[in-house]
């Protein structure tokens, strides 16, 4: 029997009371809400105050080739409560040409590297991030490889990396 997480209806009701109606859906017992980009930091901060103290993950999905997608990028914030074991997925949608969202590092230190990885892989700008550098790819890299318009086998960047010789190291 699959586990059903504890309900979070009271928090959703309080959220709607505080910020107006929110778009929410449930799939396989997981509650997701959609938050507009300009209110993301405020809403996440409010949710943290309501008991969602653990930021499990920050990630992103590129909806370029997704059927019936309205936006290009969908950020995913997975929140959890260490006291009640409730979970909540917060989605924030952003678009080209300059996808930007407010950084949540002031709320959770855990977001630091997670946001750096999203910037590296998808090119989402996190406003207010203390140290937004690439995490996995080298500094010289210019593309964002997990975007859907980036080919699986790369664009040949590997062959153009600067070669460090012993004299210049």
């Amino acid at each position, binding site marked *: 029997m699959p*586990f059903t997480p504890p309900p979070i209806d009271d928090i959703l009701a309080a959220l709607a009371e505080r910020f107006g109606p929110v778009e929410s859906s449930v799939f*396989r017992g997981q509650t997701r809400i959609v938050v507009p980009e300009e209110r993301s930091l405020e809403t996440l901060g409010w949710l943290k105050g309501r008991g969602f103290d*653990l930021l499990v*993950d920050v*990630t992103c*999905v590129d909806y370029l080739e997704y059927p019936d997608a309205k936006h290009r990028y969908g950020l995913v914030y997975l929140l959890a409560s260490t006291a009640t074991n409730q979970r909540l997925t917060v989605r924030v949608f952003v678009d080209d040409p300059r996808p930007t969202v407010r950084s949540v590092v002031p709320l959770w230190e855990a977001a630091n590297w*997670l946001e750096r990885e999203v910037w590296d*892989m998808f090119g989402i700008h996190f406003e207010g991030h203390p140290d937004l550098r690439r995490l*996995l790819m080298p500094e010289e890299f210019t593309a964002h490889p997990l975007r859907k318009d980036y080919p699986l086998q790369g664009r040949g960047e590997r062959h153009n990396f600067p070669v460090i010789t012993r004299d210049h190291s």
Partner: protein
Amino acid sequence: MSIASPEYGTIDPGPGPAARSEDYLWTLNFGPQHPATHTTLRLVLKLEGERVVDALPEMGYLHSGFEKIGEHLTFNQYVTVTDRMNYISPMANNVAWHHAVETLLGIELTPRCSYIRTIIAELARISDHLLCNGAVGLDTGAFTFFLYGFYQREVIYDIFETLCGARFTNSYTRVGGVSQDFTPLVIEKIRTFVKTFPKTLDDMERLLTRNRIFVDRTKGVGVLTKEEAINRGATGPVARASGVTRDLRKDEPYLAYADLQFQVCCASAGDCYARYLVRMQEMRESLRIVAQALENLPAGPVNVGIDQRTALPTKKQVYSTIEGTISHFELSMSNRGFEVPNEESYAAIEAPNGELGFYVAGDGGESAYRARCRPPALLHFAMFPHLIRGHTLSDVVAVLGSLNIIAAELDR
């Protein structure tokens, strides 16, 4: 101050550069190739004498685009890639990946399959903790302890080899089931392991738990408070050693954990020694789980039925029933296999290192639209500078070992 020189007259050197204390700092490159990092990662340490003032972790040396590959391989093919993430406990990764896929597809496992997966996930936890604690011992000078642990890992490898033919990269699970059922020989080998392992565990504890050198090297080193653990996203033994009583096996019982009795091991000190103790105790609890699950292993089919069209039917079914033939044909053809909803879901298991989750998005196709892996080691490595500040250079290996950083999982 002026200097009188017989040749040049009086020289006024001026105020001169004022030396600040940080000018005397030493920069030390630790890794990417260093025996104590165990894997390929790099730390740039700022040292004042032997004291670490700051550390700058660098990673990405093993980045191989696993998440990008996950968008191009089918749900069953990708399990071979998850083997290579945390290669200390590949079985746990297999279970985590297919747990996430089955959550997305809405597949309910047979009781026998969930028990089998529970057993192998716990065996993987034991082998992971043995290596992690063994490596902490090795780095702090206890080589014998490491070899005791490594010998028992060999026994677990042997069980896995008997089970699925592969020692290291098992790729054992399938969507809706596992590749092979338990044979009597596997059950016998696990039973023997359950019987013999506690003695080794006792020996290991006698070797190290009250060893003066080891306790001095690890106690009070790399302290992580409970608030910091939650704020920095720590999970698994690292969080439990800091007093966070979070264990997904209890909090969100998946597989067969709801039926089994075990305790969540916690400590409150939050230092390297507490993390060592939590891992040692968790091995005993894992052994309890394995013993219970093995003795209560339900009979019945191991894979989900033919009607669900997710797991390949057996050869007998293919050759003797029309449903088996059709199901086998459809699963072998491209785009005739699973019914994948246009939805996204996240599912996590309590892997040996912490919460190992996969955020899987489906778009109706036979492979994932997005296969995000939430690696526990990433968040643990991110807190490394916080833990090491103010400690000495020799503590770097103790803290690094106790966090159990696996670079392949870190970089993916």
